[in-house]
């Protein structure tokens, strides 16, 4: 993740060329923040028109919108803080943060990919909050011990199939390379879908270099790389394709609950669980509200909302609903550190294989 740092430095120098004073502002975060704050607040006041007693919070959230809406209204009802939310994919959120880095506005981000949160921490962009209530109940592997990020929910990856077209679903990842499923499989693009990248890097972290054979077999069998998760899933719902490899389970569960002809299997050999981390940004103008929001995300109430959205709750003491519980999903022993380091090159090589 040194690229991020380099870019940051180049941006600092860029600004310096325009106005040398700003160099100090960027080099020294707290003073830079206080300098940027007044200007920002006036901009906000004209944008939102009113300021409430509880103040406000700017949230950038990836993932299911219904869940985010419910969490936001729950938090607003509880604290009186007004939440302004930007909803998008992990990539869009990171792009927006990059564009705004000289004058950040976001307080809290919720991403759909653990390595991106690890990268934010490594670049010193997160604000640690080790005192967060209930943080000790979170799954240890997915959250930062120093409180830089909290995985408050997770999804597991499986083989999603159209029940009208598939009567005997494949039971292992390798089965999707069989002639039976020629030209019938979609796989999400790991450069667009954080969870698909988690699956691929997770699989490779377990199988090593030989793991690539699986994806090469997929390609040889006519598997199509098809955009982000929903774009990969939609052709399966309409019947143009039969299965999704590395499909996100909560999307399949909620479509199934609506009545669509879908179901999911988790291959017995194991799969990858993709946690969805939330983090407070160091540049946050409303730190107290941001902390309160993290506390709310970890509360019983919000974890219940997570379960209602067919996601795996981040807290180990909360049960999932209407879906397979985490303890019943066969999981690979993945190496998150390796996955974080090799994400970029894996995505690039995967794209080469599927081009």
């Amino acid at each position: 993740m040194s690229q991020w740092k380099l870019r940051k430095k180049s941006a600092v120098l860029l600004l310096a060329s325009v106005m040398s004073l700003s160099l100090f502002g960027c080099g020294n975060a707290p003073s830079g923040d206080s300098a940027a704050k007044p200007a920002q607040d006036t901009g906000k006041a004209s944008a939102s028109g009113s300021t409430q007693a509880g103040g406000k919070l700017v949230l950038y959230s990836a993932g299911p919108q219904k869940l985010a809406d419910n969490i936001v209204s729950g938090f607003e009802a509880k604290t009186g803080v007004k939440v302004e939310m930007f909803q998008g994919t992990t990539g869009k959120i990171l792009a927006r943060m990059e564009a705004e880095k000289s004058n950040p506005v976001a307080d809290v981000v919720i991403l759909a990919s653990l390595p991106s949160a690890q990268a934010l921490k490594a670049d010193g962009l997160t604000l640690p909050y080790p005192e967060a209530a209930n943080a000790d109940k979170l799954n240890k592997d997915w959250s930062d011990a120093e409180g830089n990020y909290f995985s408050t929910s997770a999804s597991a990856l499986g083989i999603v199939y159209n029940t009208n077209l598939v009567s005997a679903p494949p039971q292992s990842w390798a089965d999707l390379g069989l002639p039976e499923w020629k030209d019938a499989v979609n796989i999400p693009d790991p450069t667009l879908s954080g969870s698909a990248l988690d699956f691929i890097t997770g699989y490779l972290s377990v199988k090593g270099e030989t793991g690539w054979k699986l994806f090469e077999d997929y390609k040889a069998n006519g598997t199509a790389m098809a955009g982000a998760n929903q774009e990969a899933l939609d052709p399966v719902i309409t019947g143009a394709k039969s299965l999704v490899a590395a499909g996100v389970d909560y999307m399949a569960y909620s479509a199934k609950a609506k009545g669509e002809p879908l179901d999911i299997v988790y291959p017995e050999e194991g799969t990858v669980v993709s946690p969805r981390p939330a983090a407070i940004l160091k540049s946050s103008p409303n730190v107290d509200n941001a902390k309160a929001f993290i506390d709310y995300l970890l509360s019983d109430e919000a974890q219940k909302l997570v379960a209602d959205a067919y996601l795996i709750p981040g807290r180990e003491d909360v049960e999932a609903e209407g879906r397979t519980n985490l303890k019943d999903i066969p999981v690979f022993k993945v190496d998150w550190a390796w996955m974080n380091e090799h994400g970029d090159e894996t995505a690039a090589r995967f794209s080469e294989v599927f081009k």
Partner: protein
Amino acid sequence: MDSQRLIRKMGVILALFLLIISIGVPLLLIFWQSVYPDQHFDWLAPLRTIAGHELSGVLLQSIWLGVCVVAGSTILALPLAWMMAKTRLGQHRWVDVILMIPFMTPPYIGSMGWILFMQKGGYLQQWLPGAAKWSDSFFSFGGMVLIMSLHLFPFLYLLLRDALIRIGGNLEEAGAVHGASAGYRFRKIILPLLLSSYGMGAMLVFVKTIAEFGTPATFGRRIGYYVMTSEIHKYISSWPIDFGKATSLASVLLSVCLVMWYMQSTISRKFTYRLVGGKGQRSKRYSLRGSKGALCALYIGLLLILSVGIPYFSVIVASLMKLRGAGLSLDNLTLDHYKELLSWGSVSQKALGNSLGLSLAASTVAVLLGTGFALVIGKSQGRMQRVIDLLSLLPNTVPGIVIVVGLILLWNAPWMPVTLYNTYGMVVLTYVVLFLPYTVQYVKASFTQIDGTLFQAGQVFGGGPLLILRRILLPLIMPGMLAGWIMTFTIASRELVGSLLILPPSMQTSATYIFAQFEQGQVSLGMAMAVVSVGMTVLLLLLVEAMNSKRKWNAS
């Protein structure tokens, strides 16, 4: 005379200043990032990025696609423009409004419509199971060219039709009197007079094609055809974000477009004629009877079916479906999505309002500014004017997302005294910058063909500058302004890429709402929104068309 020259000079300087602030500086900031990647200045960084990524093939694919789509839309637009300008069919103004629909449709929705229609198990195969063979040949490069041509040909059509109307009947009649056959008249009279407008339109189509993202992202990805914009978007919207690389690629795209612009402006200068003179002119309209008329009507009908009918059939059907997995049948249809969409006070209803307000504001500002710029550029070939011309065209030659990033870098900089970022104003500014070229192009096309003797005549008869402006200039460039306004409004109301990055949090437009629904798996709800917002735009355009139905154009 001197004071007039002074005003003109002031106008040039003002235009230059505005353009540099709104377009020049953001692009320079972007360019700066691409040549300054690593704490030291490096002119070759963009070139190395391209060499290191084997992108020459992708670049060639982009250009080839552009060429094919220009050819495709010419084949579609030219006969139509002739029919609408020169035959009685031109009285059917509603055709124009319907032909605007492909424009109002976000490109990814149009492609989705085609995909849903043609794919395996799609709507066509549910009707005609034997159509499976067509499906394979449709999902190919040819299909992509067809979809994009059907989406972009209205650009060319509008320009060509207006040019044909301006040519009028008398030139052709003169040719006919002197014994020229129809083919000879077309070659020697119509074609040279059309070239300038055609060059402009073809360039617009070419640039739009290679800067287009929606169709490559949906259809292109499916057939494995990658273009420059898909690579640029990869660097901007997916991890790891790298504006430096994206901007390097964008500058290559920019160079290609500049070469096109240069070629086009050379051609235009060579083939610009003064068509609108003091003499009254009437247009000649052929009345088509019998088989010829039937053929023309058939052509228009077929074009309407292909460009609007099929995609919208899919979109509307998808918006009505209860279960997307259950296929086409009456008991699988429901109006629930529309009910949810239009319920008062809902997110979707606010998004519609935002879209409407933003695009009204943006198109009005853009038309005022763009007309000013076009008049300043005028017919003169001074260096300043050409710089203005180039700057006002730039937003059309650079992928929208690059400009948007540049605008954010500029307006969100800590040293910027005005806080525009994250406000309503920023969105309007972005739309204006992105869509300024349309008004400039349309007004310029009208203006360059006005004979200067008209203004001299006005002065001879004692008309002051204001009177000349009001009674001579404005009526003559009005169609151009109106076309620019309509174009800006329709495109702004569906703008997606910029809106995704620039809208303040908690604010949505219909386009971002649709996109969010697709991301969330609520395809039906997204399609319903597309139908509603396009329907609203059509109604508004019909209203404008009705008010404008007494065209003053040929009345003089």
